């Protein structure tokens, strides 16, 4: 709209100029007579300046709106897809899509789209004006215009494939660099860090070549466009001149047509220039929509609730796994099959068993990061899938195997459990998790900023922060995933006491790889190959002389 207005103004401006030149050159008018014309031209110039400026601002505004919308949708959808989708090794690529990918749309919307609109409207306008001024010249344009568009389309097809490759390569490069940066200490430990420079060089150069391939296509497009456009302009100049000499065309019209002809091609050439930005944006958009179109792993609650609303949180938290089966994508063997488990309200059940038996899958299912393929999970008799996911997770506190500490202060990281908690509550939670002392010893205490992986905190300290989070959250259901693996004997004993206190009145699932956590549980379930093979209390199971006794024996160094 704005761009069209600018184009109309330019057309009028050019016609006026040709009038002025005509009157002075052929009619011999002097400056005094030209004043109104020049004044009008000045006015047009001002108007056009305002319109051009406004166009830039409006285009950016449109781009901003789209980007905000997409980034929010992406953020939201990545959460819906859950941790299995965003797992560590591909996070660089996803982060790139989230930031750089969305930014690539900026140029697409603020530059390519306006250029494309112009290319649709302006040549038509110029054509109409030229048709009125000099029908013969419009024939030249009528022939040249479609030719150019055809050429653009031909080269464009190639450019599209190349740009998509470039975007994929960029995402890959981004993932590679992130991997390299985060793994730098590991590389150094193996003395392999320096040689990576060569690889970075190779990858960057390769990326440069791919980008150059894209640009070369873009440049070739504009070269062809320029040649075609200038050839057409030269043809118009010749044809106009010849007819001018024979007196078939008045000078003012001839000059106006000559000035207008470049404007016919200008938007097309501009579009060729922006084509690169356009295809880059399109490739980014495709990746973004691919992520957005990835179906969420979790069934929407409305699909299962009887009255069309998510079910309310039950009053009791008896947890039941009813013949639950789950197989990870790309794996043949199910992680869980026909798994049966009951955790009565307020009791503690420990899952034990060798690595890969499916213990972590159980906690992922309970946290609803994944949904069972078969069977169902119930809470107080209600199907878990009928409860809104966020409402459900508000009832669960989780202490993961490897807690992620976020870039922020210690207090912020603990406050994760309950964002509106006061400082006193944060300190109380830290004390309960035996984290208070070491936090106070940090340079800025609770306000010390910790890195993304909780760098500089020891494994045990990181774990205790995660436990403090769980204390602060004070939820009725508790999932402890190997919570004490990194702790030394002293803290472990203290934390076990604290966890026992925390567990009171709550329904607790303990994923215990190291068994100490299991001893006090109300019930122990032994998992093997995704099935529950034994169930009972510590002493009962020991007496049974089965799988559990075998596990305990090997844990205690073969001596029992």
């Amino acid at each position, binding site marked *: 709209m704005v761009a069209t207005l600018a184009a109309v103004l330019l057309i009028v401006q050019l016609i006026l100029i040709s009038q002025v030149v005509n009157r*002075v*050159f052929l009619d011999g008018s002097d*400056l005094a007579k030209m004043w109104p014309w020049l004044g009008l031209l000045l006015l047009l110039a001002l108007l056009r*300046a305002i319109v051009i*400026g406004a166009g830039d*601002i409006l285009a*950016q505004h449109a781009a901003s709106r789209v980007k*905000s919308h997409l*980034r929010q949708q992406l953020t939201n959808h*990545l959460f819906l897809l*859950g*941790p*299995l989708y965003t797992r560590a*090794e*591909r996070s*660089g690529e996803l*982060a790139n899509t*989230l*930031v750089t990918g969305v930014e690539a749309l900026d140029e697409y919307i603020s530059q390519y789209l306006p250029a494309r609109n112009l290319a649709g409207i302006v040549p038509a306008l110029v054509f109409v004006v030229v048709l009125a001024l000099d029908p013969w010249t419009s024939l030249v344009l009528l022939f040249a215009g479609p030719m150019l568009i055809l050429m653009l389309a031909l080269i464009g097809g190639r450019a599209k494939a190349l740009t998509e490759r470039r975007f994929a390569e960029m995402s890959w490069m*981004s993932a590679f660099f992130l991997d*390299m940066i985060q793994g*730098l*200490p*590991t590389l*150094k*430990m*193996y003395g*392999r860090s320096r040689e990576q*420079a060569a690889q970075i*060089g190779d990858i960057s150069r390769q990326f440069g070549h791919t*980008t150059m391939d894209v640009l070369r296509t873009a440049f070739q497009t504009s*070269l062809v466009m320029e040649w075609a456009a200038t050839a057409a*302009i*030269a043809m118009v100049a010749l044809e106009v*001149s010849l007819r001018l*000499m024979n007196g078939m065309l008045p*000078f003012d019209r*001839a000059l106006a047509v*000559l*000035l207008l002809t470049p404007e016919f091609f200008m938007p097309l050439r501009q579009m060729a220039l922006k084509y690169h930005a356009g295809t880059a944006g399109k490739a980014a958009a495709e990746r973004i929509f691919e992520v957005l179109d990835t179906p969420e792993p979790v069934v929407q609650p409305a699909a299962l609730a009887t009255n069309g609303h998510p079910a309310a949180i039950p009053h009791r938290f008896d947890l039941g796994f009813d013949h639950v089966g789950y197989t*990870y994508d790309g794996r043949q063997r199910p992680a869980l099959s026909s798994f049966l488990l009951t955790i009565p309200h307020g009791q503690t059940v420990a899952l034990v068993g060798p*690595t*890969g038996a499916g213990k972590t899958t159980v906690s992922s299912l309970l946290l609803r990061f994944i949904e069972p393929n078969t069977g169902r999970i119930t809470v107080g008799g209600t199907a878990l899938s009928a409860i809104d996911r966020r409402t459900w*997770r508000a009832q669960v506190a989780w202490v993961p195997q490897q807690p992620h500490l*976020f*870039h922020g202060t210690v207090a912020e990281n603990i406050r994760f459990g309950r*964002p509106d908690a006061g400082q006193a509550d944060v300190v109380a939670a830290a004390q309960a998790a035996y984290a208070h002392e070491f936090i106070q010893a940090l340079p800025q205490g609770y306000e010390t900023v910790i890195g*993304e992986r909780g760098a500089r905190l020891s*494994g045990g*300290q990181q774990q205790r922060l995660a436990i403090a989070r769980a204390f602060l959250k004070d939820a009725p259901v508790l999932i402890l995933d190997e919570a004490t693996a990194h702790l030394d*004997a002293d803290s472990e004993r203290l934390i076990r006491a604290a966890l026992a206190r925390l567990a009171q009145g709550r329904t607790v699932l303990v994923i215990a*790889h190291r068994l*100490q956590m299991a*001893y006090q549980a109300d019930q122990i379930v032994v998992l093997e190959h995704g099935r529950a093979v034994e169930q009972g209390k510590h002493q009962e199971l020991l007496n049974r002389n089965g799988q559990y006794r075998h*596990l305990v024996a*090997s*844990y*205690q*160094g073969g*001596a029992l």
Partner: protein
Amino acid sequence: MAVLLSFGTVGASVGLMAMSAYLISKATLVTTVTDLSLAIAGVRFFALARAALRYTERYITHTATFRILAHLRVWFYESIEPLAPARLMPYHSGDLLARIMADIETLENFYIRVITPPLAAALVTALACVILGYFNIWLAVVLLLFLLLTGVALPLISRWLSRQPATQLITVRAELNAIGVDQVQGSADLLAFGQEQIYYDRTRRLTEELNQVQERLAVIRGLSNGLGALLTSLAGLTVLWLAIPLVTGGQIDGVYLALLPLTAIASFETVQPLAQAFQYLEANQTAGRRLFELIDAPPEVAEPAQPSPKPAHYGLEVRNLSFRYSPDDPPVLDGFSLSLKAGGRAAIVGPSGVGKSTLVNLLLRFWEYQVGQICLGGHELRNYRTDDVRDMFGVVSQHTYLFNTTIRDNLLLAKPTATDAELVTVCRQAQLHDFIADLPQGYDTLVGENGLRLSGGERQRLALARVMLKDAPLLILDEATAHLDAETEQQVLQALDRFMVGRTTLFISHSPAGLALCDEVVDLSRGCCVSIDSLSSKEPDLASGTTTRMKTTVGQT
């Protein structure tokens, strides 16, 4: 070269416009086609030359730029490599990623839009002024004035206005990157604690901020583009205004009247984009500063001037070692001593946060120690080159980092020349082979893709296999079996027991089964070695009534 080409391009386009205008003006006066032939040839030549020159110019500048960018990335990496991990700690990896990707990408603009255009613009200005000056000196003066306004004043104003938003743009973008990485990598914790909304809001706030900055830049851009267009039109008008009396007064032939304003307008083609180029300049400077901030940082650990001494043996001697991470921090290690003869095995215990991981960081030369001595093979540790030190250690750390590549490549990190048979051997020892063999693509399975999500225990065993492959004379096992279930741990420890023979080992662990493999136990919380008796007194608690057998000796300080 690029400057000349870009000058040629616009020169040709000025020539094209001037020639065409001249051509049709001439056509009204002359009557034969032959008189026109020279003018026609000129038009054709300028038209074709312009397109060809532009193509060549863009091709050459861009190729050169990408070569420079590739060099910059390597240079940046080579500069931050010695800084890791000590000096990189304050930086979020998302932020570092923004530097090596986006900031360097921003410099692309510097070479393409900031360096060549002003030079080309200067040349074109001179050419256009010479053409106009040929007719009348005042025409040239007026044109020069307008060109200077557009090419110098406007860019400077635009740059002054965009200084603050351009800097902010880079910072906000890096923040978005950091939050993006945090969100993606910590998504499990975020979801479990229902913190999606907070991150969602934070992303939205940063996006708003970014939008505001970009819209502010757009206002400046709109202003300078609008003003540029205005100045261009004004220049054409003024030249026309000045030329009309000259034509009526007979000083200039009327034939040239069309040529004059058109030449003036055409010459603005190179000058107009300068304002935008200068807007980028600010972003370039910020990007450059962010790169140099890291490139100029001194590494934490200095390399010795001499080549490494040859270790006499692989014994380790630590005397009175004290360490704090920064002068404000409390000491993490305070007068710590340890003596471990070649081939000896010491277990290091102590509550978390007592400095076990710090000791590892110092031994691996990730941090520099100031107080006390660390001797390896009879020489002070800092006399060795860092690479040579790390070469002597095989390390399993608490957090195993795996690269986004195949299992095989992750293993080969330790020994690029290892054969398949060697890989299988170490993986069998680490109790990992069966698991890998069970995967659809076996050793060529990509870690982290196609549903292969390694559990903590599987990652740890991969790290163990990697260390066995490295075959180093000293070992540091930092909670190396913490994620393993009891049975697997037993099997792994048996393999480790054999592997540790003849190697000097530091075994950081609380696992009773692991401690049983060691000759001595060092309790870091007491700053020295302790007798195993005081430690085993706690054991009944640990295993709830059952006693644990331990083979130990009293440590020697």
